[in-house]
């Protein structure tokens, strides 16, 4: 233990900028992601970043990314959920029964499916939070039970096809409501997509600006102006590059719009809500949280309810993408979601992790999958590389922690 001496008791004057430094432990994941993208762009002669391929990566990984958002919260709370793959299958089957067999209108069916996911989460959350069985055991049991219920529901065969609305939620794109505009050498691009991208960038810049002003108002230290501008420009360039490519292909995938909303909402929830804070405090030190009056059991319970509901959403999207609910849907999705969370910087002991990190972790695996199949690597080699990436990512995290 070291005693750190503050530079002066009166703290630094508010306008004095903090010295710019890169926190490698936190930003390492983003640097790694960028390097992987560059690597596969070179290896595939640029095919990785072609408009259609970018669209494919997003659509193919959307359900794992949705699961990763729920999983990171579970892992921050110090638990694990092995049942999400089976939950995806079961909720997909529920959705199929509701729409195909019962003919319910699609919004009602989707809502009921999410609810059934939440009920599944609640059932597991009860045993974990209130009965005190380790999550590993409860969700391992759930993995078997919900797979069995899927088979019972489907009678060992697929149900489909799904209504067009559900299919387009998984596979579809926003319409060309305002037509195309020419982008010179890049050819025509969808105006709505471009405007949406610009609106996102503008919104991001505005919210960052307001946050910065508020922090200055409270006398806190902030990034110096050039760094601040650089960060915003960096984000804007990456977002617009992706959006332009998508606009040149077939506009924005609906599932990307959904993912963006989820990422934003859950990031805010994790960082700024009382509930999110309580998840971190439980994972960081369970006893201290209990003695600070955090309702540990209720928080744990709702984290699993949330995981179940998100698994239900992933179930709808996966079933809609295949246009049928099958008995083997969602096999080993739980492992992809868990790997995404740990590659994204979560700690095994809990208390650490970010929603954006988990999404980046999921995208790293998605890019490796996609890039390796583009260069024609056999699937066993893809599996090998993904396994090693997981190991290296966590080893790096442990190493930086030990050095600190």
């Amino acid at each position, binding site marked *: 233990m070291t*005693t750190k001496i503050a530079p002066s008791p009166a703290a630094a004057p508010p306008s004095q900028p903090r010295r710019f430094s890169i926190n490698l432990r936190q930003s390492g994941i983003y640097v790694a992601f960028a390097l992987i993208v560059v690597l596969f762009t070179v290896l595939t002669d640029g095919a990785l970043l072609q408009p259609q391929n970018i669209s494919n990566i997003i659509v193919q990984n959307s359900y794992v990314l949705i699961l990763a958002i729920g999983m990171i919260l579970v892992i921050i709370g110090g638990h694990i959920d092995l049942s999400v793959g089976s939950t995806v299958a079961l909720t997909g089957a529920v959705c199929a029964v509701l729409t195909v067999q019962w003919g319910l209108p699609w919004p009602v069916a989707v809502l009921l499916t999410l609810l059934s996911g939440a009920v599944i989460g609640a059932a597991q959350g009860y045993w974990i939070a209130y009965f005190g069985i380790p999550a590993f055991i409860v969700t391992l049991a759930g993995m078997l039970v919900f797979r069995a219920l899927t088979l019972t529901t489907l009678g060992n065969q697929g149900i489909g096809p799904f209504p067009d609305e559900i299919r387009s939620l998984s596979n579809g794109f926003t319409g060309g409501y305002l037509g195309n505009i020419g982008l010179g050498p890049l050819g025509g691009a969808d105006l709505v997509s471009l405007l949406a991208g610009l609106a996102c960038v503008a919104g991001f810049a505005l919210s960052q600006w307001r946050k910065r002003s508020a*922090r200055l108002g409270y006398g806190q230290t902030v990034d110096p102006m050039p760094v601040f501008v650089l960060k915003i420009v960096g984000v804007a360039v990456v977002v617009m590059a992706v959006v332009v490519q998508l606009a040149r292909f077939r506009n924005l995938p609906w599932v990307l719009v959904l993912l963006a909303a989820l990422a934003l909402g859950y990031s805010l929830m994790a960082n700024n809500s009382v509930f999110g804070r309580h998840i971190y405090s439980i994972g960081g030190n369970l006893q*201290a949280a209990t*003695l600070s009056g*955090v309702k540990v059991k209720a928080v744990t319970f709702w984290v699993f309810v949330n995981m179940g509901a998100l698994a239900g959403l992933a179930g709808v999207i996966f079933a809609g993408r295949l246009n049928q609910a099958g008995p083997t849907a969602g096999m080993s999705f739980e492992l992809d979601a868990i790997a995404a969370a740990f590659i994204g910087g979560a700690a095994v002991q809990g208390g650490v992790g970010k929603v954006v990190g988990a999404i980046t972790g999921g995208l790293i695996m998605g890019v490796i999958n996609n890039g390796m199949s583009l260069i024609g690597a056999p699937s066993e080699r893809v599996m090998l590389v993904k396994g090693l990436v997981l190991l290296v990512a966590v080893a790096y995290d442990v190493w930086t922690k030990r050095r600190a």
Partner: protein
Amino acid sequence: MSDEILVMRGITKRFAGVTALHEVSLTVRRGEIHAICGENGAGKSTLMKVLSGVHPHGTYEGDILFEGEPCAFNGVRDSERRGIVIIHQELALCGQLSVAENLFLGNERARRGFIDWNRTNHEAQALLDRVGLRENPTTPVNDLGVGKQQLVEIAKALSKEVSLLILDEPTAALNDDDSQHLLDLLDGLRSEGITCVIISHKLGEVTRIADTVTVLRDGRTIETLPAKGLSEERIIAGMVGRDLEHRFPPRTPDVGEEILRIVDWTVHSPAQPDRKVVDGATLTLRRGEIVGLAGLMGAGRTELAMSVFGRSYGVGVSGRVVKDGREIDTRTVRGAIDHGIAYVSEDRKRYGLNLIDGVQRNVSAAALGKLSSRGWVNENEEYTVAERFRRSMGIRTSSVSTPTGTLSGGNQQKVVLAKWMFTDPDVLILDEPTRGIDVGAKYEIYSIINDLAAQGRAVLVISSELPELLGLCDRVYALSEGRITGEVSREEATQERLMQFMTRGQSS
């Protein structure tokens, strides 16, 4: 063979700048029961760890002569090979394994790598007979009470052909019958020629069974006395004979009306639901008052505090908590906090802080509701609050986002205090508020405690250090074996008086 089985000379042991033992000497004669007495933190357990090799040779200064030969133990196995066996306060048994398996753990009765179960159980039965424990050797240890487990430990020591048996607080967790049985057993072992060193807080037992008493204080040997005809008062005088320096900030008490009354509070142990850890305790706190709670290890101080604070400890809790004349519900931690009670744990790393999170989020952890509206936290307000406490309490950290795990003990304690001050409590229970903190930081913590009282809050300080209670408190309760055995005002309080109350057992 010489008459002295063990001679320890000039033992000095330092931990990271703190001298735990200073030139301690101890001479034990063959075949006697030798008691070591001293306050918590006097260095008794450290001395025994040096002897048994838990602190290996080379990490301390001084000489150990056992059976006349110099010893250089590098671990417990070395000392056990020479016949020195230590039984710690926390029993080291594997609860799921049988009595016989525990007896020969690490020392298995085996043939070519396979356990010889007949021999194991047969020899185990013989050992159990020797310590007078009528149990089947195949019984899992968890099915035995603490008293019987203690006997299993002794039987395990006998299986290793012990010549010097060290017992650290063997009766602290035992009821009267079990204690009596244990003392009788030690008496029997003495007649078999086994030498015993016993560390005990129960001076009644010490004067009854020991042949010789050595008193330690502040890591030094004070005196070695023959136990025959020795009075408890004489031992206490040796244990506490220390003058109070100017280690406490000045304070003028301004004590108001009663704010909290704990009535007839009884708590049972979760491990043994028939044992009372706190037994009918009644105490009152007044506004602006600093009240001490004195008691030796195992007296039930922390258990009392934690059971009041949201039933965080114990089973079968009964009694009433009355605040401002009305009975309040403190069955949940949240309820206790909402009624203006705060509890600062004795173990800040385990129970107080989220070590991987920053100062700011730790300070707000118990009262996030005050910083949020509709479930959303205002981080800027939170920063302002943390910054305010950092300045007012002098928390030395480079920023309020620094993880608390990297701060020094004194600064960590200030963060925990800030967390509870931010809940704006009327009553603060501080459990060992200065444990593991250097002298300078202690003074700062005392100043903070004085300020809290001056704001009209009531403070209950639990401490093992009697001088701390005398220097800080307006009134001190003494707790012994779960009962309030005395209440002393600041004017009447002396260390001797408190120690008499604290060692007043129900049996002696």
